[in-house]
């Protein structure tokens, strides 16, 4: 895979404020690469959900645990890998929030929004590493 000067890898402590800084950094880089607003909206939303999940549910806000974020840029694509030090989870066990019986219950919507707004969303088998990929929308999309 080709690399870009903007690529970075960091480890952050399990604090949502640190997650938000990473979010701003990635969004800033996408803005400088002239991604359309709709892409920025989707990536921001997906990063918010993914980083909060890693920090809160994965690492349980444990200050001794970190979240690793790897971000790589291709010409029209950004790939972000987020890995926490938690036990992971079974993605298949997350209830469908849009089914009638779950519609009025909180939960399960974060993953759904990520899948909807990103081009690719993949968890590793143990569920503690998430790959998010966004391919830049073309103008007529």
């Amino acid at each position, binding site marked *: 895979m080709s690399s870009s000067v903007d690529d970075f890898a960091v480890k952050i402590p399990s604090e*949502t404020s640190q997650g*938000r800084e990473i979010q701003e950094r990635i969004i800033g880089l996408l803005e400088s690469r002239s991604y359309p607003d*709709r892409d920025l*909206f989707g990536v*921001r*939303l997906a990063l*918010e*959900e993914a980083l*909060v999940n890693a920090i*809160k549910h994965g690492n349980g806000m444990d200050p001794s645990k970190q979240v690793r974020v790897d971000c790589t840029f291709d010409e029209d694509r950004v790939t972000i890998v987020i890995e926490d030090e938690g036990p992971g989870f079974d993605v298949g066990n997350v209830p469908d*929030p*849009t089914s009638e019986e779950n*519609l*009025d*219950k*909180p*939960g399960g*919507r*974060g993953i*759904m*929004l990520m899948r*909807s707004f990103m081009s690719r969303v993949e968890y590793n088998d143990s569920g503690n590493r998430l790959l998010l990929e966004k391919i830049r929308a073309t103008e007529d999309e």
Partner: protein
Amino acid sequence: MAASHRRLDLEDVGEVTVARFIDKKILDETNIQVIGNQMFALVEDDGCRKILLDFSNVEYLSSAALGKLIVMDKKVKAAQGQLKMCSVRPDILEVFKITRLDKLFSIFDSREQALEGF
């Protein structure tokens, strides 16, 4: 105490309490907690039964914020009240549609249209 600052702009229009979110981004967990508590207080403490949530300022919200809206909807229904929403930006409306919450919530284009519906 910063956390207790009002996160909702309140205005009474006839019997309807219009609550406009002040924040552009409803993401931060502490903030979401405070906003949730201030919404819930409208029903539980102030006895409001007709409530319109105005989203005109809101550019981003997360699934945690959706959770608070779902609980708010339940509380208002349990109190036999009516909850409506208005002025939702297209991006946010898409979030509601993806999660099918547009079927659960009563959403109107403008404040005027929503007020007519009470």
